[in-house]
């Protein structure tokens, strides 16, 4: 392995989080982003060719070394790693609303889910999955939430466009369809919120 490959391997190993190709290039003052990219490719090939148990995965806008999925069951049994607690259904739903509506305020989240959201928002914030991204202009200037890099990381996504588009869901509802009681020719508008 050449020195840049080694340096990049060392960095990916010690970072234990996705590292961007720019950050990797900065390791060596003489290396360009293109150099870092080709070093990544060579490393990836080495891992594949020598059948290492780990591989380089593109994740959350960066690169990370992860174990290959076929070892999941054995590693789960061995329990040598630190496990993160599962998210509750309430937390997942709240995250879903935030992912699609960001930046979004608490009131809107609560309106959509039909339950109060304070506790769940705090949990998600503490787990680094969402963050305050701004404030609304509305009354009381409520905080607006968005998803974090760690959110992408946990879902194994490169960026937010990897989320399924609304029209790919079995129930497509963007924008909400007005309800037509009997006749469909009338261009009825969405009823006002009560």
């Amino acid at each position, binding site marked *: 392995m050449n020195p840049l490959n080694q340096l990049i391997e060392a960095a990916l190993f010690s970072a234990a989080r996705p590292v961007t190709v720019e950050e990797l290039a900065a390791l060596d003052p003489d290396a360009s982003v293109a150099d870092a990219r080709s070093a990544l490719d060579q490393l990836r090939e080495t891992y594949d060719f020598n059948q290492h148990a780990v591989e380089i995965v593109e994740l959350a806008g960066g690169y990370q070394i992860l174990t290959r999925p076929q070892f999941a069951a054995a590693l789960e049994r061995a329990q040598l790693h630190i496990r993160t607690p599962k998210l509750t259904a309430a937390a997942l739903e709240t995250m879903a*609303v935030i992912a699609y509506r960001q930046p979004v305020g608490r009131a809107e989240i609560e309106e959509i889910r039909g339950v109060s959201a304070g506790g769940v928002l705090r949990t998600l914030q503490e787990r680094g999955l969402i963050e305050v991204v701004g404030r609304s202009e509305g009354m009381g200037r409520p905080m607006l939430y968005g998803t974090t890099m760690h959110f992408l990381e946990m879902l194994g996504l490169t960026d937010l466009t990897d989320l399924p588009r609304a029209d790919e869901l079995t129930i497509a509802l963007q924008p909400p369809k007005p309800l037509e009681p009997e006749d469909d020719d009338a261009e009825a508008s969405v009823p006002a919120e009560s």
Partner: protein
Amino acid sequence: MTHTIQATAPAVPGEGGFVVRLDGFSGPLDLLLHLLREQQLEIADIPIAAIADQFLKTIDELELNEAADYLEMAGRLLRLKVQMLLPRHGDEEGWEDPRAELVRRLLEYQQVKEISLWMEQGIEHRAARLGRGYLPPAPEVPELPLTFELLELLQAVERVIGGIPTPVLHQVVPRPLNVEAATARIEALLRERPRISWLDTLGPKPTLTDVLSTLLALLEMARRGVVWIVQPAPFAPIVIARESTEPIN
């Protein structure tokens, strides 16, 4: 996701009550979707009357009628039930389905559930790969100063304030619905008179929870066949009668 409703041993023996774990439902919309799915009903054409009754019955059984979120939905459904009973005044064209808003919310929520399921699978899939488990201790360089700015501190203050009302609200709402008391009140009134009006059952200056409690009590009594609930004519006052009396019509 399966909805398991488990009754566990009574927390307070002798109270006759039982504690219900409701971890299956993540809110009133979830419960409503569950009821619809269970009976394979179309969201777009909800039989409001039947669903409202089932919703009330379920939250009563699960003792959810103390949770404000479920209570609000119960109120909404009852209002819809009444609206659906109102005559439509002939022309169909100007008629706005009172269920439209609820249908929209249910569809929207169903989509949220679908996305959250997708996310759950994504998380599971991703969790099959492990990152490096050992995080090397911070290197022996002079510790980097933690940085933060005044603005961040102030934002934190606002986040803290934003978080305060929720726990307080949860703590101070004491048993908002009291169906038992309402049932007792109606029974007492019916012992004095064979027929009473809806307004009689409410007592003076009823609050929203009084109205809901009374409504729940009446529906339950009607279901048990203890009382008749009759509206002799459209818009006429609703009459509540002892089971033993003949219905008016």
